[in-house]
């Protein structure tokens, strides 16, 4: 059994991964230009301001695009296939990569509404998404 690759946190991401442990999806917002930012950075990639603050995302969004992995993304994911990897567009406007779980893989489609769920993986809690009833 090969262990799955887990994040190696750093100065940008410590707060983000700690938030996931507390079931909070934290993203950043620039105090100067009001842009939302993901992944976390030391400055705003829109206006270069260093006044970036952590805010909690609603965790609600939709599938921008997705794929069904029929072959694993490395040996650690061999037992998972088929599984869905997707780009989620959060309602704040930022995109993040994740998995869609608790779903029939063939029912996933672009623009499908989803919401965040937190899944423990080793010493980490990863934000994943499931279909959202609307």
């Amino acid at each position, binding site marked *: 059994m090969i262990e799955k690759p887990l994040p190696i946190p750093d100065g940008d991401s410590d707060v983000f991964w700690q938030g996931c442990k507390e079931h909070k999806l934290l993203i950043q917002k620039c105090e100067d230009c009001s842009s939302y930012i993901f992944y976390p950075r030391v400055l705003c990639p829109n206006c270069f301001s260093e006044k970036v603050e952590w805010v909690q995302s609603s965790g609600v969004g939709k599938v921008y695009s997705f794929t069904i992995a*029929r072959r694993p993304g490395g040996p*650690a994911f061999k037992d998972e296939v088929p599984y869905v990897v997707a780009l989620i567009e959060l309602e704040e406007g930022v995109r993040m990569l994740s998995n869609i779980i608790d779903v029939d893989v063939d029912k996933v489609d672009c623009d499908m509404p989803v919401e965040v769920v937190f899944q423990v993986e080793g010493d980490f809690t990863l934000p994943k998404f499931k279909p959202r009833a609307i």
Partner: protein
Amino acid sequence: MSIKRAAAIVGVGDVELEKGKVKHGHSVLQIQAIAAKRALEDAGLSKDDVDGIFVAGLWGLPGIGSFPSVVVSEYLGIQPKYTDSTQIGGSAFEAHVGHAAAAIQSGLCEVALILYGSTQRSEKSRTLAGRPPVLTAQYETPYGLPSPAGAYAMAAHRHMHQYGTRPEQLAEIAVATRKWAQLNPHATMRDHLTIEDVLTSPMICDPLHLLDCCLVTDGAGAIVLVSAERAKDCRKKPVWVLGQGESHSHWSIQAMPDLTVTSAAVSGKRAFEMAGVTHDEIDVVQIYDSFTITVLLTLESLGFCKSGEGGDFVSNQRTAPGGDFPLNTNGGGLSYAHPGMYGIFLLIEAVRQLREEAGERQVKNSKISLVAGTGGTLSSTSVVILGRD
């Protein structure tokens, strides 16, 4: 500022493959040396003429491969006056052509050697695993995205969702490319292929089937670029660099602004403006085909058709031999060879077409060729427009 006609390609070289592997168990440095010698012989130049070196690759990592232009120069016995290891993925060599032409125009070097090699197939080093989950990859690798196929698959799904593009339209590209490979004795895959074959091949990452994906092979290539002055004394007629552009919009697929538009919209625009040619004047086109969707998005981003019209554009085998848009005439990464960073082979084939050295697959009366490289996960692009006298 323009580098138009500042430099010409006067030599190309590569190595033969057997079932996608280099012969005699050659190492990645051996095959680059063989390709370099062949390209210099093709140009009628010697090793001692080379004063600029441009190398990118994914060999020798972690380790000496971090310094490819330095390591390769040492192996070849070259001490350059200009050195460049620009690494932007598979489009690096199109960028090298622009950088070399600019260096030649500035008088910083006169004879530039661009080199690439890979023994990924022989070494069985290629997997679908993501990159180590550090820095920006920590937000990607833990989710198991097959790399790079999964990212390209997401682009394909988005294009299908927005524009109604169909899997059989992507398959048209794979089939047309195979027909070119059947005319190239050096191509790895030459068996007859149908759209049905593509659509019934195993799904790798929906909606991309096995036959929507490029091959995994070894390979090596070399290109010699010289100043206009030096071109007069070379063995072969010059193939001029008329225009070049480069750009990148993201590295990780989650940061790509629009999954249906690549930065070829930027790099292609500059190349066309520099060359002063229109789309209609291009006779033969070489577009990076890591996946069928790569070709479709690049055609649109370059402006050969409008956004969303790529599926119709490639239908009815338009890009096949005998079609009115000859594309990837060596058989491409889909059927000729794909050693990981394919971009140098696009340039080599464009030169062979413009010199009328392409044998059975020759596109008659080709005077201007466009080459469009793509690297990473639709991350970087570089476009070169070449022309003969």
